[in-house]
């Protein structure tokens, strides 16, 4: 039977032999991490390409169109063609830009979201870095995008970009709060900040947290959508109002980085939702255990991503003040109430951490 654990053992055994051949066994610990990171980077990059294709197919399906179907089978290579087009494009930039932040912003947007993926467990023991504060890490690292977007908006020296940047700052700061608060009940029940630990808890308990914590799941998805700047919360780049928002003045590779960054942010949010609320690598029923855990995990991630994509192609966009209202007056009270109720239940059940 294939399982993530076995693959990891196999690969690490193989790597040990390679290190021994090259005489680098002393650095095995560091080299392992480097290899893991590179593999993760490659995997996420390819997965994001697939997602862009998927988004186009999903939107095409919802809009009674066909979608990409020319490049490769079912148009699967369309994203690759787009990527080549974007990377070979001339890099047009405004003359009066603020050079350093303008240059750093796309890199930051790209890297910060990518870094979130390293703590997400794909299967039991199949994780780049099994941090004991995984949740804290992922929340901290993904909020870096606000700095990227704000500096992109500021340095472009464009009025639309600036408006987009400020909208984004307000939005991400507001939605960070319900995002964290909707994860708190799970942490209270499990007493763990570690993703693998939370999945293991769900395995022992025999249920996924989406059932007892459905409210938290919904608020998490809503705030994660807002965090990733996706419709209906895509006001920082609201096309019909602000042209392109913060990335109006970006083209070529830099634009591609923002674009990829947005999709990676969606992947990270969905991965967290799948791990924390949908049982990560666990099969829905024990008899389905013959299917490897990482496939279950990917399936759940895709499910959440599909949900987020369906939002985008169904809903109109909220206005900036309505967005703030929704965050502060609806999501935060609900999540706080949810924490209170969960606290009572945990106390009464007597299994508080």
């Amino acid at each position, binding site marked *: 039977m294939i399982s993530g654990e076995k693959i990891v053992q196999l690969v690490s055994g193989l790597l040990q032999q390679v290190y021994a051949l090259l005489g680098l066994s002393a650095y095995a610990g560091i080299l392992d991490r480097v290899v893991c990171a590179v593999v993760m980077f490659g995997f996420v990059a390819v997965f994001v390409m697939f997602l862009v294709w998927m988004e186009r197919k999903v*939107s095409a399906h919802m809009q009674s169109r066909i979608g990409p179907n020319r490049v490769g089978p079912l148009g699967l290579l369309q994203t690759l063609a787009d990527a080549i087009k974007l990377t070979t494009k001339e890099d047009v930039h405004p003359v009066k830009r603020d050079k350093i932040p303008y240059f750093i912003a796309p890199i930051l947007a790209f890297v910060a979201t990518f870094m979130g993926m390293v703590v997400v467990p794909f299967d039991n023991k199949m994780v780049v870095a099994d941090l004991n504060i995984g949740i804290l890490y992922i929340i901290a690292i993904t909020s870096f995008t606000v700095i990227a977007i704000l500096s992109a908006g500021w340095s472009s020296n464009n009025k639309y970009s600036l*408006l987009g940047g400020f909208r984004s700052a307000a939005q991400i700061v507001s939605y960070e709060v319900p995002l964290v608060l909707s994860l708190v009940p799970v942490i209270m029940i499990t007493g763990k900040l570690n993703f693998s630990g939370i999945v293991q808890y769900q395995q022992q308990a025999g249920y996924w947290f989406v059932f007892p914590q459905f409210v938290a799941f919904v608020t998490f998805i809503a705030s994660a959508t807002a965090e990733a700047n996706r419709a209906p919360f*895509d006001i920082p780049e609201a096309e019909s*109002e602000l042209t392109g928002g913060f990335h109006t003045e970006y083209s070529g590779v830099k634009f591609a980085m923002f674009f990829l960054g947005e999709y990676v942010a969606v992947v990270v949010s969905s991965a967290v939702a799948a791990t924390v609320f949908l049982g990560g690598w666990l099969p829905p029923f024990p008899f389905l255990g013959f299917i490897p855990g990482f496939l279950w995990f990917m399936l759940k991630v895709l499910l959440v991503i599909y949900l987020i994509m369906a939002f985008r192609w*169904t809903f*109109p*966009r909220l*206005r900036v003040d309505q967005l703030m209202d929704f965050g502060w007056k609806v999501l935060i009270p609900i999540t706080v109430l949810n924490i209170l109720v969960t606290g009572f239940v945990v106390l009464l059940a007597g299994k508080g951490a």
Partner: protein
Amino acid sequence: MTDLLLSQIKPGGESPFGTDEYVVNMGPQHPATHGVLRLVVKLDGETVKETMPVLGYLHRSIEKICENRTYPQCITYTDRVDYVSAMSVNLAFALATERLMGLEAPPRAQWLRMIFVELQRLASHLLWMGAFAGDIGALTPFLYGLRERERILDLFEMTCGQRLTYNYIRIGGVMIDILPEFVPKCRAFLDYFEPKIPEYEELLTYNPIFLERTKGVGVITPEVGINCGVCGPSLRGSGISCDVRKQQPYLFYNQVKFNECLENDGDCWARYKVRMNEMRESVSIVRQCLDRLEPGPIETKLPPILKAPPASEIYSRIESSRGEMGIYLVGDGTPKPYKAKFRCASFSNTFVLDQLTRGWKVADIMAVLGSLDMIVPEVDR
């Protein structure tokens, strides 16, 4: 003129935080201003302080050109006045000329005109629905709207060979009779289309975000509406009866049964609702017209050279897809109009924008603009 406008906008520090006003040029190239409308928007943060439409980027001087063309030649230009609803402008000009010269089209031509103008209204409202939804961020209805519009354009193409600028309604009648298969195809389309309207309503009308974005936003009070010369569905959203088809029936509108759609709130949602209901009424009108269609001539016999009587003038109006479309013609006994003036609904509807958006957010400009259904070529002519 632009420099004058911009010089009036000075950065001023009234706010205790010493903030400046932010002047943004929306357009002439902008993803949301349908075409080449330019808005100079004065902002305080996200709040709109003033919106100034700047026109003329699509001015083609059609009215002046018409003065140098014979009456039948002018019809071709009227297509370009409002290319989303070209049939209506064709009809407006043809009717004005006929009234000026005391002509009348035969009954079959009149019924055909009604069928095509109402189908055109459907096509125009469908496009508007998509664009309006797109303006407030829902991208999917646009594709749905265009999907149905394609089938209407197929019907037009089948009859007159054109899909956008038809030149179909001529002085004294119509260009060509419909094909025998037109009537069944048109009925099939109506049967297909009518159940689609509730589908769009399901997607938009009571969507909480859509309601949030449109309810209470951009309220045209009856006084403001009348003072600013707002007309058509935009004014009917404020509860004022202003349908020319009812008030001054032309063609055979007095022989068909239809309701004038009215809403009382005057906000973007009311205007949306009026147009959605109008689509239902148009379907019913086309059905009645198809029932009443009888064989007969499709144009009256015209003199070889059409001349208006000397010193004659006419103001003739119809209800186009966007509101009252008036044509003012002055004849001087020659084959060319001495003066032609088009009173276009979009032009008068554009200028309430400033009053409606003051104190609202940037995003509301798009919602209000979308709900007014303005078409730039009609504004600039």
